[in-house]
């Protein structure tokens, strides 16, 4: 899949690159980060114009993100009916709202595997579209500059960068999953200990 898309980027240039980023933002497995690194290398080789490639790419990915935010937004009614009354969902909404900006920004270029779920949650939790797009644009611009810049710097050896970046993203995702699991474990242990203490106090001494 990735090989086929790389051939088409060589043949059709920046518009095709933008289309790939658009599809990637909608959740299609197109290896968008690999394409950004490769596009940086193609710019260095004078095959693509950097201004056109960066601006069309940014436009494509922002459009895709806006649509996936919209999908979350229109699923909001269903989610509210299904989970709206549960305290867990309300807690999750509050928790997301307090860190949404940072979550949107970081998932654009650091933990890209979580970008689509973040868009859907942002849309479904009633997060403001304008705010979402501001953080989204900043994050996607960072992604294109960072990954594209590395591709440009390494030129024809761009595959090394791409390989490292995709594995590093996976490692960060694993650390987050492990962190959340550990945090839940610690919290649960504290709750159990508090309960035991309370029970001790309640039991009258003989």
């Amino acid at each position: 899949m990735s090989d086929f898309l790389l051939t088409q980027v060589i043949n059709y240039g920046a518009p095709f690159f933008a289309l790939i980023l658009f599809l990637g933002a909608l959740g299609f497995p197109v290896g968008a980060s690999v394409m950004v690194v490769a596009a940086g290398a193609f710019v260095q080789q004078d095959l693509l114009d950097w201004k056109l490639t960066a601006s069309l790419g940014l436009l494509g990915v922002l459009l895709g993100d806006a649509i996936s935010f919209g999908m979350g937004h229109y699923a909001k009614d269903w989610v509210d009916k299904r989970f709206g009354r549960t305290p867990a969902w309300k807690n999750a909404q509050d928790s997301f709202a307090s860190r949404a900006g940072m979550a949107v920004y970081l998932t654009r270029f650091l933990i890209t595997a979580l970008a689509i779920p973040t868009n859907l949650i942002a849309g479904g939790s009633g997060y403001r579209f304008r705010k979402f797009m501001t953080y989204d644009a900043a994050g996607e611009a960072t992604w294109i500059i960072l990954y594209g810049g590395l591709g440009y710097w390494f030129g024809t050896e761009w595959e090394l960068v791409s390989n490292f970046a995709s594995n590093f993203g996976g490692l960060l995702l694993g650390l987050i999953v492990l962190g959340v699991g550990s945090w839940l474990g610690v919290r649960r242990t504290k709750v159990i200990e508090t309960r035991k203490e309370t029970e001790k106090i309640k039991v009258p001494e003989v």
Partner: protein
Amino acid sequence: MTPARQRALTVGLIVVGVLIVAFFGLRTLRAFREFRGHRPPPPFGRGEEQQAQTDVELIRDWMTIPFIAHTYRVPPKVLFEAVGIPHKGNEEKSLTRLNEEYFPAEDGRVLEKIKAAVLENQPPVSPNTPVPSAP
């Protein structure tokens, strides 16, 4: 959520987290070693000053003949002739596709012919040209 479910979720997240960290950690380490073993080539200049790539091991199956010709500064005509296929109608096809169309019985033949033709027809190496990486 019941306490049993909470416990299962916590244990599940920790186990999955450890597996993901171990899997991608090893891959990241390997990629990092490879990454550090290669220094990026000096930044290319524009136009005439731009350097050609010389390492034919970087030629991949997804590349097209005009792309390889551009990267390695070899005339496309020479590469099409080396493979023995017409220029017309084949400019946008990858090496994989050309191989499937013209040599379905011989896997990797187009790639090998292209590598050999590039090695034979490369322009003279200037002192600033990136050195091919070690195999």
